[in-house]
């Protein structure tokens, strides 16, 4: 008897290990659905936002993925403080560093304690099962009727824009978030040009007498020269799973590394296609020839070339975002070599004269801000949110304080000297334009955010990158579709396994640790893991998107 008791208690003890990874036991059932879909009386309808929005200083919490070198949190941002002063509404930001976003979001959902608002970024984090499920679960508020009632400005933008209207609805025609909208300085909606793409060392090209590479074979010539003549140990930098953010190289073969548009109506999965195999063969060959970074699995260069490579002449090409181009490394003091000059280059194609069919797709809809059922004063919060869609609100968020960080010239906002050319007295010397903006203007977040504000803050040669990258096409890009809860439950476990397989095999083929003879086995493994079902689900979600 004693032995059995001990055994039982031991087995119970063992469960501890299991729960170390899963100690979410809150037994809060059902969730408080709020006033989902409830009719709001006509008389409540707000047609104009008047300041202050709250007389007695309402306070709300916002969870946001955001980090900056100079200030710890958005609460220290002067534009955020000015907004608080004007509206009488205080927003307490909980800032999460980018790399921890997905994990922290998972923990946030599991914690059952939600802030009033969750900024999901540009789909950096998504609610598992999609927006409709989030509403049905009682986590997010169904904002459809509230927007009509309390948000006159946001309402107007949606009513006048077909794509915007479609994108901000779920498949069931509900609204689970308020979208940050990209605009120009006159508060007209306009998507931002591609801000990330491939870059290459122009100074090396000039030295070697080479032209800007266009086709895959041009690239091979250029990279070989970088390696042989310039001693680059990682001529081309790629992400840890073989691709770069903008899918340069994969797009040359007409595929992407994930789901993509096979044609206007059909969804396909890249790794199942012949083009993916050809891309792998190319990169395997390049890796063997030493044209690809031998440490790509640990260097994390999918979007940005790491400084210890870019600034040291170890690499000649890789993905980058526009502020980090041209002589950035020299200007930032990362190198003494004034020659290092990264310029934008179009994504490669197979044949001359073609255009790559993928680029970083920007939509007018950017960050998505959900309101959770934890919010106790929806009208005030929504009115505050709506104020961010006025030109006045936009100017504060994007340009800061009038007279200090910007002035109005012919009704156009212009940054002051302190923002454009700071001196030692301002204590801002050596701070990049991007970081200066992050200190004095809020930038991305709920509201209208004009992308052309960067035109003033950056040198033209850095800005011009976006026009090179933006010239590529988008026909391979899938729109932002959502799955139903049941689809998600079926899709997630299957796809998680498929992703493991694809990443592992792709890297193994590129590095040459696995023979290409096994490629057909890889394809049949994909089939046996039921990739067809995943494609079907994606297709169904896409069809529903089209039918919205």
């Amino acid at each position, binding site marked *: 008897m004693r032995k059995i008791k001990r055994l039982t208690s031991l087995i119970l*003890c063992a469960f501890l290990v299991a729960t170390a990874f899963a100690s979410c*036991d*809150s037994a809060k059932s059902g969730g408080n659905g709020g006033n989902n879909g409830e009719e709001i009386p006509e008389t409540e309808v707000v047609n104009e936002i008047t300041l202050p929005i709250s007389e007695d200083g309402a306070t709300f919490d916002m969870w946001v993925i955001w980090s900056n070198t100079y200030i710890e949190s958005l609460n220290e941002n002067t534009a955020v403080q000015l907004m608080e002063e004007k509206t009488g509404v205080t927003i307490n930001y909980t800032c999460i560093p980018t790399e921890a976003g997905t994990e922290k979001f998972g923990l946030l959902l599991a914690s059952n304690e939600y802030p009033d608002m969750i900024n999901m970024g540009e789909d950096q984090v998504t609610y598992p099962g999609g927006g409709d499920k989030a509403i049905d*679960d009682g986590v997010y508020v169904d904002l459809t009727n509230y927007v009509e009632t309390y948000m006159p400005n946001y309402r107007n933008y949606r009513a006048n824009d077909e794509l915007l209207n479609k994108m901000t609805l779920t498949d069931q025609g509900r609204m689970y978030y308020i979208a940050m909208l990209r605009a120009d300085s006159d508060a007209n909606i306009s998507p931002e040009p591609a801000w990330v793409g491939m870059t290459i060392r122009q100074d090396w090209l000039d030295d070697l007498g080479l032209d800007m590479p266009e086709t895959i074979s041009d690239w091979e010539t250029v990279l070989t020269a970088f390696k042989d003549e310039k001693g680059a140990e990682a001529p081309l930098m790629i992400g*840890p799973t073989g691709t770069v953010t903008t899918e340069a190289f994969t797009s040359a073969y007409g595929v992407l590394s994930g789901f993509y548009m096979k044609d206007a109506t059909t969804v396909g999965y890249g790794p199942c296609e012949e083009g993916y195999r050809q891309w792998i063969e190319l990169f395997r060959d390049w890796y063997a020839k030493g044209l690809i970074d031998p*440490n790509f699995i640990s260097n994390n260069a999918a979007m940005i070339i790491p400084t210890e490579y870019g600034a040291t002449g170890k690499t000649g090409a890789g993905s980058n975002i526009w502020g980090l181009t041209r002589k950035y490394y020299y200007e930032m003091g990362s190198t003494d070599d004034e020659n290092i000059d990264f310029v934008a280059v179009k994504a490669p194609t197979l044949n001359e004269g073609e255009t790559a069919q993928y680029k970083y797709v920007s939509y007018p809809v950017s960050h998505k801000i959900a309101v959770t059922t934890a919010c106790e004063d929806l009208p005030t919060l929504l009115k505050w949110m709506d104020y961010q869609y006025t030109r006045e609100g936009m100017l504060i968020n994007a340009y800061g304080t009038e007279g200090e960080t910007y002035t109005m010239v012919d009704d156009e906002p212009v940054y002051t000297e302190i923002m454009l050319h700071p001196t030692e007295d301002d204590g801002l010397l050596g701070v990049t334009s991007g970081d200066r903006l992050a200190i004095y203007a809020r930038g991305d977040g709920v509201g209208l955010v004009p992308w052309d504000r960067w035109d003033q803050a950056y040198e033209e040669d850095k800005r011009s990158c976006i026009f090179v990258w933006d010239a590529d096409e988008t026909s391979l890009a899938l729109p932002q579709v959502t799955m139903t809860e049941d689809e998600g439950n079926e899709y997630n476990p299957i796809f998680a396994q498929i992703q493991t397989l694809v990443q592992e095999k792709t890297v193994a083929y590129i590095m040459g640790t696995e023979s290409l003879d096994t490629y057909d086995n890889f394809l049949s493994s994909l089939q046996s893991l039921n990739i067809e079902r995943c494609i079907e689900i994606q297709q169904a979600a896409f069809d529903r998107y089209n039918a919205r």
Partner: protein
Amino acid sequence: MKKGFLAIAIKDIRRNKILYILSIPIILWYLIFCYRPMVGVLMAFQNFNPVKGILGSQWVGMKHFVDFFTGIYAWRTIRNTLALSLLDLIFNFPAPIIFALMLNEVKNRYFKKTVQTISYMPYFISMVVMCGIIVDFTSAGGIISTLVANLTGTASQNLLGDPACFRPIYIVSNIWQGLGYGSIIYIAALAGVDQELYEAATIDGAGRWKQTLHITIPSISSTIIIMLILKMGSMLSVGSEKVLLLYSPSTYETSDIISTYVYRMGFESYNYGFSTAVGLFNSVVNTIFLLTTNYFAAKYSETSLF
């Protein structure tokens, strides 16, 4: 006449009042941090939804277990976990013992203390920093990679990208980090060995080696066995942080263990239920290991946990 359990308990509590009061915080700690979260294992049988909680989520029975064992990664993750644990046991368990025995033979007190202190140091480097160092040293062009390349006459390559190198790197770095700290308990045990035994042995003509074999090792054998049982209990709970920091898709073949798989499924793909099911399986296997070792230890020696 047999008294009831309650009567005995009350009598005992009266007699040892203070001891019982002293134990309350620890009992509470176990209840709050160890027993209460156990409700969470129910998630293994659910399509867990964090919002609906344990009571509201949909029950799916053994589905997650079936999915895991019929999936293509079950055998691989179990195999990798076992391999890492076994290698760790074979190399990392005796290493501190041998180290302690060797230190025990050193007669110069200052030399002994210095070696001991130096050997502790790696233990106090944080896991993240240590893994950063390992990643750096083993990348193409890194110190260790270059050394290996020179010895084998090949080009310097990223060792952490090679599935064949993952286990050696993991084990060797484990030994390097844990050797000194792990030896403390044995050094303490060695200090307690009766010096007269050595004197007697010397008179009988036993040399150093014979003394070690017949006096030192038998004297600390009970410590060794207890440590072994404890180690067996955590056979399948390989330190997931270290693997997480060192592995990459290219080495999944040898490095993807149960706990990293659980992590990816749970926190990157939000399959909480599936994740818990796999974790639960891991714990059950650990318990079996612990009980088996304890059984054999009790049978073949006088030392056991219970």
